[in-house]
């Protein structure tokens, strides 16, 4: 099938802010889907899922089967779709608020089950659509209308959380590195088992991290993907509360484990 025949766009007017990190994710995903279809996956066998928030609007902009679920629930919905029809490639888009706050139990358990779906987290480290409150990944001291003195909570590292839940595919990407992100998304969808990509993304309106990510993000690769030690070392390299720490992106961990059926 030619790229032009795919018609991945819809007529829906895009309402993301100009310069929003979501555009990079949308672009990378379209490229990944185009590659996937070229590799022989029928377009009709792809199902995308989302919850609520800026990230979740992505399903309206893609002419693919989609289920826009409730806040925090798209992983559970995606699991049901996959359990009902194993032929489908099921991909979830959700924000850090939906995945790590409202729906964290579903993430942890889906990872534990190793169900063959892909979760792409648009991690802008704040609730954007509700005007910028702190989430699980917002840095300590994050000032917002709900935390005028700054948040007193330390963030947790979602990558460590999924590692602790027995993940089989763990990656971090960045919306500013579209080509790299495309390769991560493609590898994640092709992974047999639960694949997890935390995508760092600036929120131009409430937490503009563009400069930080442009400066600190670097692409890493290795041949030692089944080493938990290596993975944790890479994950721990970035400490959000340390100004000078670098931010590695890439696949950190990939192993095979029986898939949940």
């Amino acid at each position: 099938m030619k790229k032009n025949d795919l018609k991945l766009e819809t007529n829906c007017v895009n309402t993301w802010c100009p310069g929003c990190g979501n555009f990079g994710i949308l672009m990378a995903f379209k490229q990944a889907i185009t590659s996937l279809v070229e590799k022989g996956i029928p377009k009709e066998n792809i199902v995308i899922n989302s919850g609520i928030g800026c990230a979740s609007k992505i399903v309206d902009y893609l002419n693919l089967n989609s289920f826009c679920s409730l806040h925090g629930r798209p992983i559970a919905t995606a699991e049901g779709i996959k359990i009902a029809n194993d032929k489908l490639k099921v991909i979830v888009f959700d924000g850090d608020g939906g995945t790590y706050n409202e729906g964290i139990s579903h993430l942890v358990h889906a990872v534990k089950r190793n169900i063959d779906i892909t979760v792409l987290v648009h991690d802008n480290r704040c609730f954007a659509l509700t005007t910028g409150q702190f989430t699980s990944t917002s840095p300590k001291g994050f000032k917002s209308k709900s935390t005028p003195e700054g948040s007193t909570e330390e963030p947790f590292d979602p990558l460590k959380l999924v590692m602790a839940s027995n993940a089989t595919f763990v990656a971090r990407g960045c919306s500013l590195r579209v080509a790299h992100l495309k390769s991560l998304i493609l590898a994640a969808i092709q992974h047999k088992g639960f694949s997890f990509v935390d995508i760092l993304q600036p929120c131009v309106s409430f937490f503009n991290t563009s400069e930080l990510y442009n400066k600190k993000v670097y692409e890493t690769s290795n041949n030692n993907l089944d080493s938990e030690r290596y993975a944790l070392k890479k994950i721990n390299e970035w400490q959000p509360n340390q100004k000078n720490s670098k931010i590695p992106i890439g696949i950190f961990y990939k192993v095979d484990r029986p898939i949940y059926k």
Partner: protein
Amino acid sequence: MNTEYSILIGGAAGLGSRRAGLLIAKLFSNLGYYVFIYDDYQSLIRGGHSFSNIRISTSRKLSSCSKIDFLIALDKRTWTEHQSELKKEGILVYNKDQFRVQRNQAIGISAQTIVQDLGARKIMENIALVAGFAKTIGVEWKTLKELLIKEFNKSRNINLQIAKIFFTQNKSLAKIKKIKREKFPLLTGNEAIAQGAVKAGLGLYFAYPMTPATGILHYLAGHSKNFKIKTIQLENELAVISAALGSAYAGLPSMVGTSGGGFALMTESLSLACQAEIPMVIVNSQRAAPASGVPTYTAQGDLSFSLTAGHGDIVKFLVAPGDAEESCYWAGKLLFLSWEYQTPSILLVDKQISESTFSFDKRILEKIKPIKYLKGDVRNQYMRYQYTKTGISPLLFPGKRGAVVKVNSYEHNENGITIEDEISAQKMQDKRLRKYKEMEKAVEKMRAVKIYGNKKSSRAILAWGSTKGPAQEVAEDLNIKLIQPLVIQPFPEKQMKKALEGVKNLILIEGNALGQLGSVLASYGIKIDAKILKYNARPFMSEEIKRALDKIWKNEKK
């Protein structure tokens, strides 16, 4: 003429009183009797006090009697708690290694000593009492032996050995007659619900364990190969219903089951099922609430909540069946209706139906039709929410070449894409309301309201759900009318008003404290003359309904 016996068997949890009760029930069932078992147990694993009240009769009964003919006590507490219920001429069969009783018609069984001597497990003392009891009432050894062979596999020989000893030791004091009647299998309400849903084409059952709905999960999981379905336990009720909506979207008929607290969690997605127009059956098996309430006991307190569950203007069915056959039928029928109208349904039962055991007339299964739905096609551009006259849009599922199937929790256009403008928002809500009109019409064509007893009586009682059982008995005994609404949403107003024709005195009977169905009736202008409400976490018995009616009618005369 009805011949009937009530047998109560009890003991601490872990002594096997429920299993022993079921064996006794099966003995009678095999002899052609109808059986109804009420199981009473506490929220604990070992100890406490559990009992089964087994009602055996030659005509069908759906509730327990407070006076019992046979008391089988595996421990002393059973005797002390239930001796006042045993009729004067009733027979006590008890474990005399546990305690001693001075009473005529008391048969002590040295269960502990012999079971210990045989090196058998303590729980097998229950077989000693079953065998002693069987002999006492004149069951033949052959009948008991056949049952035990069928019921036990691993521990068959030791159980037969114990049974033989105690059967031989005891004397027959009565002779139970064999009844010529087609034998009905014994099924719990939960098992009947599972069978009904499977008959209609259930593909997937999702649940998180919660009493009293857990039996559906266990039964379906244990029979998933025969039934060709999948059973999935997930991390919580939020996941359960979200996943079930995912699988229904992918084309597989799905159902979930829970009790009040779990149902409360599911309501966010009940609203989603309505908005996204995804077929879903939710079984809400009530227990005494609010909150954790009295978890292993019954109530009818979730009616108001279930009727209004879900944020927004919700289009759904709610049906409250009153026995095993009705539960079976409506589980299947609701799956059918959910797929026909692409909307959620609630099957509202309670502990009294879910966990009681019934003589089940399986001919009801023949009345359940496999689901069908309006199928889409891809010749024109497929739109999941295409506007139609009935409000029902053609269905296709992901994986269909040429179709893009988009469903949405946000208000959406025909393609399933989010909208916010006033015209589209109203148009899509109107589409769902057109469906509701169709549902209302459909309900009036079903048998949504049932009448029992003397249909011409000007005195009528009104009961729903499990209260139908004892109320039916009352109506038949007192020659008055019983009206039972089965479908409560959409409310079958015409049928109800027809049922009320000629009624001059209407008394409502409900297992809750506020008279919740009474409020529903009031909203249709139906006036209740008096209410009989019970909310001590126990089911109604016909005797107490009769006493309450008596009191009401006496006061009226004054």
